[in-house]
Every structure is written in structure tokens, then in C-alpha cells.
């Protein structure tokens, strides 16, 4: 049942021209950043060669590129999550799903997974672009994979957050604005905090993605992401269920 919903969401996503436009534009932006970072790396390469234990090309080209992608996703994901439930409610198509023999859990999980799969495609395309460097030099594939994993987890939390906000309203645009505002403030908490031990900072998903960005897999971070995503998914399921009670 979940697979049916994932398929349908995927179809809807790719039937919109805007999706293709966004994918194309993103590829262009990645390529631009990639070349810029590569250029900068080539310029300082000779100096780096004199430093003992200098950062490799993966750390100085790939990691910053993934960092940029994290920022872009923060802005981009709300634009996709906004229509997931709010638009169904506005077009009154939610009744089709609610009257069908599928549970609220399946509806929410289907929508969550479909978007996560879509965002993973974007992340994968970026990873593939970076691994092209492997032809000319030795790449640290471990770092590349942790970075991609970190981005996927970050994307999952932004999707869960956006999905919940989308479940709260009938207006997709309200869902998008509030999701952007919330994830932006979470990010600001991260960049604004003076030291790493700040308690508030632990609330921010981007703070937890940072260790993964430098190739460090900490179980605390993984647990944080799991808790964050589950919390918002449970809240969304509850909200969709409440639709049957209060709407």
C-alpha cells in the first residue's frame, strides 16, 4: 500500500514541469560550485603540498560542496513538502485517501518516503559528480559516503518537519513559509551559537550534520536524527487522524 502511494507521488512530482526545471537548475548550481571549489583548490595546491598532513581534495572540495547543498535543501524541501498534505486538503482529495482502506500511518509514510527518495536522487547526482574526481586523484570514498548519508538524514528531518506543517494547514504557501522559517531558525541557532557545547545548538539538525560532514559518524547524532524524524512523523500521523475527528 505504501509503495502504491510512493509511486503515485513520484508520478505527480515528475509530471510537473517545475520539478524538471528545479532539477536542471540544481545541477547547474552544483557544477558551478564544484568548479569554483576545484579552481580554488588547484590554486593553493602547491602551498598545501608543503604542509604536513594537509587536507585532501575530498575534504577541501567535496565537503564544502555538500555543506552548500545542505543549505540549498533547507530552502528547497519546504517547496516540495508544502503540497503533500495541504494541497490534498485544499483540493479535497484527502477524502479519497481517508475513505480508502489505508491507515493514516501508510498515507504519511508513503508521502514521506516518496519525497525522501526524490531528494536522495538529488544527493546521489551530486555525489556522482564528485566521484568523477576519482579519475584524476585518490578520493576518500568513506568521507564521500558519510557526507551523503549526513545529507540524507538532514533531508529526512527537513521533510518530516515540512510534512507536519503541511498537515496543519489548507494553504500550501503557508506550509512552505512556516517550514522555511522554522528550518532557517534552527539553522541560525547552529551558526549563531558561540561554542559547540551550547545546549540550544543540540536542537538544530544542521549542527548534528556537521560531524558527518567531516566524516565522523557519532551515534548521538544518528539517535538525534531518528528521534527528530519519528517525532514529526508521529505528529503528522496524529494530525491526519485528527482530521477525522475535528475537521
Amino acid at each position: 500500500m505504501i509503495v502504491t502511494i510512493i509511486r503515485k507521488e513520484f508520478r505527480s512530482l515528475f509530471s510537473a514541469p517545475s520539478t524538471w526545471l528545479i532539477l536542471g537548475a540544481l545541477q547547474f548550481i552544483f557544477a558551478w560550485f564544484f568548479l569554483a571549489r576545484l579552481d580554488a583548490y588547484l590554486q593553493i595546491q602547491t602551498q598545501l603540498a608543503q604542509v604536513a598532513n594537509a587536507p585532501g581534495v575530498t575534504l577541501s572540495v567535496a565537503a564544502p560542496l555538500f555543506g552548500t547543498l545542505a543549505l540549498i535543501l533547507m530552502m528547497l524541501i519546504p517547496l516540495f513538502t508544502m503540497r503533500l498534505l495541504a494541497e490534498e486538503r485544499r483540493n479535497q482529495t484527502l477524502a479519497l485517501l481517508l475513505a480508502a482502506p489505508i491507515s493514516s500511518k501508510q498515507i504519511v509514510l508513503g508521502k514521506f518516503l516518496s519525497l525522501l527518495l526524490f531528494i536522495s536522487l538529488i544527493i546521489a547526482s551530486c555525489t556522482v559528480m564528485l566521484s568523477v574526481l576519482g579519475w584524476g586523484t585518490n578520493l576518500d570514498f568513506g568521507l564521500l559516503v558519510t557526507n551523503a548519508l549526513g545529507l540524507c538524514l538532514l533531508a529526512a528531518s527537513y521533510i518530516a518537519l515540512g510534512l507536519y506543517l503541511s498537515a496543519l494547514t489548507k494553504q500550501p504557501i503557508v506550509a512552505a513559509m512556516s517550514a522555511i522559517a522554522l528550518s532557517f531558525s534552527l539553522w541560525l541557532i547552529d551558526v549563531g551559537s558561540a561554542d559547540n557545547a551550547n545546549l540550544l545548538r543540540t536542537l538544530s539538525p544542521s549542527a548534528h550534520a556537521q560531524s558527518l560532514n567531516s566524516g565522523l559518524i557519532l551515534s548521538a547524532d544518528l539517535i538525534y536524527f531518528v528521534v527528530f524524524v519519528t517525532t514529526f512523523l508521529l505528529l503528522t500521523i496524529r494530525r491526519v487522524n485528527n482530521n477525522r475527528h475535528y475537521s
Partner: protein
Amino acid sequence: MQGRILGYIRTNSQPFNPSMTAPITLSARNLCRRYGQRDIVQNVSLELKQGEVLGLLGHNGAGKSTTLQMLTGVLAPHAGEIDICGFNLRLQPDQAKACIGYLPETPPLYREMRVDDFLTFAAKIHRVPQDRVAASLIEVKESCGLQECGNKIIGTLSKGFQQRVGIAQAIIHHPQVIILDEPTVGLDPTQIRDIRALIRKLGDSHSVILSTHLLSEVENICDRVEIMQKGRLIYGDSSVRMQQYGHQPGFVVTLLAPPPLGELESIVGVERVEALSDTRFRIMHTLNASTSAVLLALAAERGWQAQQLTPIAGNIEDVFTRITENEPV
């Protein structure tokens, strides 16, 4: 059979009564629903047999849509139980919902999808087995007249065709109970006729509940009528009997050489005679009196030159107004 498909012919013949032994497909007991402090639906109980078309009638805001939403599990009732084909909607929602097809007031269509894709999706979420999906799709498109539109995008279809896709979505999984919320709103007369014929056809093998405020719809396609007002069911009977509710029998007769009014009034059973013109008279008589036969016999005997005799049919609008206004709420 043909007469049953064309509803308006049917109402003039014998009413179609589902046999007393037909299984009960839907039963709702004491449904209540509040919005804030306001009671929208109070103590509504309904029962539906297989092969029955039930019309839910009422003014705007009477609680029809809310009731239907509760029956389909879109809305949870504050009190009351619903059983569909023996499954409790609250305890076994998946089994119960698999027996329902629902068309809400606004057809739930994904406008960016193609008709075929959408109907396939509808079939799958309603648990049609994978190997049956293609066959169901062809079947449902044929019965809803959508053969030509399979490849079209739903958003580009006209309102009538969108409504058909909505109905197709509700019946693709062969549900036992079909619930339609105002299925003919906004359609042109031909489309209304087609959709009514379709509903009537569905009513032969499935149970159908439809809400409407078009009284002619009830007259044409429903076996049974429930009238709702301010959240309560205030009247329920077969639609044929409803048309006779509080209705006094009578007829309009044309007599080319009429006698004085007094003579007509003295005919057995006549209660009131009204001259509509020099030659046309409206005659109301008591129930069970064969006044028309007596009058025709007299006309032949006394040379009144009777030309046309039209019985006054029960006007369902009048009946509806009478029921909803009489009922103390």
C-alpha cells in the same frame, strides 16, 4: 430490466422492492456529530439492504454530507456505531472500507494525472488484486462512458466527465455499498440523465446511498427516501409512498359540453370542483373512490363530451415542503 434502468418509467410502474431477505449491507446506529457546541447530526440511524437505492434528502446544511462522511470513515462520529457488510468501521476499518465506494461532493481528483493512471491508483488503494486491475479499469471505463478519455489529463476534462471519473473511482473495486454525495450537481441535462441511468443500474447489484436536494432525482432513481432536517431524520419511506404523503387524489377533466358545477359536485366521492376554464375542471375526490370512472360513465350517458382526463400526480416538491414544514423540530 430496461424499465429499471430508466428510472422515470419505473416510478410509474410497480416499485422495486428489495426482497425482505436481501442482506443488510450497511447499518448505522445513533450517529451523533458536533462541531464545537453545535449538533450537526443527532441520533441518525440508517439501514440499507443489498440492491436498494436510498435517497438522503434535505435542505442545505441539514447534515447530509456530514452523515455520509461518517459512513465512509472520513469523519469519526462522536457517538454511534457503523457496520458495513458485517465489519465494524471503528474496529475493522480496513475490511469495512474495502466494501465502500465514496464520491464526495467535490470529486477527489488529482488534476495533473491521466484518467487511466488515476483510476489504476484508485483501484490499488482499494485493494483490487494486481492481476485484476487492468480488467477492472476497462470495465469501469465502459460503464461510465470514459473509453475515449483514458489518456487525457483529468484537469482538461469537462465538469461532466470529471464527475464520471469521480464515479468510476468510487465503483472500480466493486464495492457492496456506494455512497454518492450530490452526484449530478453542475451537469447538463444529458449528463444528468446518463448518470442517473448509471446509478440506477448500479443500484440493481449494489446498495447505493445518494444525497441530493434535487427532488426529481429522488423521484427518478430512489427506492427509499430519508429526509433530514437540522441533523435529524424526520421522515423515511419508500419514494412511491412519499409521493402520496398527504396528497389528495384528483384529476383534471375537459368537458366540451359541461353541465352546471352543482351537477359535478353531486357525483359520488367528489369533494371539490374548480372550473379552470369554460371546459376544463379540476376535481378533487376522496381516497379510494372511483370518481373518474363514474364521471366518464355519466358523461357518456348525458352527452357532456368528455375529452381528456388527466390524474393529478403527487408533486414531490409539495410533499417535501409539507414534510419539512410540518415537522416540529
